[in-house]
């Protein structure tokens, strides 16, 4: 029974594909997978806008949307209708084609990136050998979309926002990929389903062997999530958008459906990157403890994804926006060294995997934690003492 439930989506797809003649079947299977991904994550986008507005409202001691439908649940539909019925304005000076293509290019690569994420047992659209590489390669294409939007609009705020966005996205790509590389180093594969398999089994006290339960994995996960926040333009790293200073940045000349597409792309990339973070560090679709294995795998993935989304909303409700120089300092002076240190700690963990003497597990933990905490301490001390990340000192205004 549990087996059937777990494979329910696969079985449905097989039944539907079997209805078609043999030469068409691969195409139908691909189409079904793509349709399911677009429908699921499109729906999740709608749900997340509601969750985000409600969550932020509660954090700010408000009630949030509660007028459209029960608990305001139909608010995304109202928002969508409003977006669709708005006039689509293209500035006369804009580069028509680039302005038109940018929102599409923002969404399509993200949807492509979903194809390699394993959402459940055997539930992956495209089981690529180098899936992780594919994910990051395709995900980077959205940076071009952002710059196209900024450049094509021919507006100084658009261009400023796009410049900021490019600087930020490229800077945070480095720690993002480096923290993912530490997982690749330990798992020895770039295929995402294989990485999930490398976290199979249960260790001490019945806890799963997820990478996040190791010293380097925890650090890597935190670094990955911080970099993901920056990569998906979310607060506190939302200064490419920066409503208060450059009025939505590269999106300032967009309206109506194209503007909605930018938001769709942003949220979809958030889900995709959370999905990869889950796959890399949180054991993908695996249950945290052995006696919960009967719950269908895709439900575990969904629960973890919602948890990640909740954390992102929580962060957005807490952190103020960074300044551009703080952002860059943080990326190059803190995130990059720390992700390199994490890589070293992961290498140590991998090298000591063959230790068998009594107390080896404890020693590995102590070594790994020391390898991470000492550089962290030194880094934070040097950064705060030299005033590089501390409060701003004004040279002339004092």
């Amino acid at each position, binding site marked *: 029974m549990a087996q059937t439930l777990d494979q329910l989506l696969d079985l449905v797809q097989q039944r539907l594909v079997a209805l078609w003649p043999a030469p068409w079947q691969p195409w139908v299977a691909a189409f079904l997978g793509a349709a399911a991904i677009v429908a699921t994550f499109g729906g999740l986008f709608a749900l997340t806008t509601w969750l985000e507005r409600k969550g932020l409202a*509660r*954090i700010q001691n408000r009630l949030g949307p509660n007028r459209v439908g029960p608990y305001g649940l139909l608010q995304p539909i109202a928002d969508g209708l409003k977006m669709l019925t708005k006039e689509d304005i293209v500035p006369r000076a804009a580069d028509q084609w680039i302005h038109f293509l940018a929102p599409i290019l923002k969404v399509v690569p993200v949807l492509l990136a979903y194809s390699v994420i394993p959402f459940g047992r055997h539930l992956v659209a495209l089981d690529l050998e180098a899936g992780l590489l594919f994910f990051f390669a395709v995900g980077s294409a959205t940076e071009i979309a952002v710059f196209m939007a900024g450049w094509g609009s021919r507006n100084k705020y658009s261009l400023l926002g796009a410049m900021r966005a490019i600087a930020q996205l490229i800077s945070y790509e480095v720690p993002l990929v480096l923290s993912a590389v530490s997982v690749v180093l330990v798992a020895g594969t770039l295929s995402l389903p294989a990485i999930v398999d490398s976290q199979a089994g249960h260790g001490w006290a019945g806890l799963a062997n997820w990478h996040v339960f190791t010293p380097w994995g925890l650090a890597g996960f935190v670094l990955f999530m911080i970099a993901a926040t920056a990569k998906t333009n979310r607060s506190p790293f939302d200064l490419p958008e920066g409503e208060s200073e450059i009025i939505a940045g590269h999106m300032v000349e967009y309206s109506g459906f194209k503007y909605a597409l930018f938001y769709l792309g942003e949220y979809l990339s958030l889900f995709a990157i959370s999905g990869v973070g889950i796959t890399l560090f949180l054991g993908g679709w695996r249950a945290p403890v052995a006696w919960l294995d009967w719950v269908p795998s895709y439900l575990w993935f969904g629960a973890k994804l919602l948890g990640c989304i909740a954390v992102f909303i*929580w*962060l957005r409700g807490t*952190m103020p926006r960074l300044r551009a120089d703080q952002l860059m300092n943080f990326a190059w002076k803190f995130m990059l060294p720390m992700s390199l240190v994490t890589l070293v700690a992961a290498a140590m963990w991998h090298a000591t995997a063959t230790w068998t003497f009594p107390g080896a597990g404890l020693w590995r933990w102590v070594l790994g934690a020391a390898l991470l905490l000492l550089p962290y*301490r030194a880094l*934070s001390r040097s950064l705060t003492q030299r005033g590089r990340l501390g409060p701003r000192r004004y040279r002339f205004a004092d």
Partner: protein
Amino acid sequence: MFGAGLLKGLAETARNFVGSYHDPARLPTVEYPERRLELPENARVFPFLVYDGADPERGLRCVACKICEKECPPQCIYIVLERDERGKPQKHPRVFDLDISVCMSCQICVEVCPFDAIRMDTAFEWSTPDRFGGLLLHKTDLAKPNRYYHQIHPTEAAETDARLAAEQAKAEAKAKAQAKPKAAPPQPAATPAAATP
């Protein structure tokens, strides 16, 4: 240590989030159209006309003296005196209009009124699709019973009523005192009372 402040901030927002579900101090919103806060007693929005008794036309305290019209800083009051068929003034307004799109709620009309006829109302839901006619209040819209005045400003209304009753008693006593010695001459008793309004 680096990052401790971030964790502190996250804890604070989490307290807000959880507290908003059970702690009224962390969710002070009152959902207005369904539930509303009670207005403070001294709340004031736009003026209204007080009338005594049951008839809003005859019980109106206003005598159309036009003091409020002249004192009104934005000049939002318009009064026309009632005259009978022979053209005699009637101590009653035929027209009393108040443009609330102009009124600035200063309460000067209330302060200058010698008859306690105009008072500040607390009704504030005046939105209308017609910005000219809908915001111009006529005598019929403005006349509200003394009972209503007691409801919205109990202390002030009680004070006004007590003062009015005392003044009336005093006037009656004076009239009686004047009426007694002048009972013999055929002069009508109403003349001195009418001369001092």
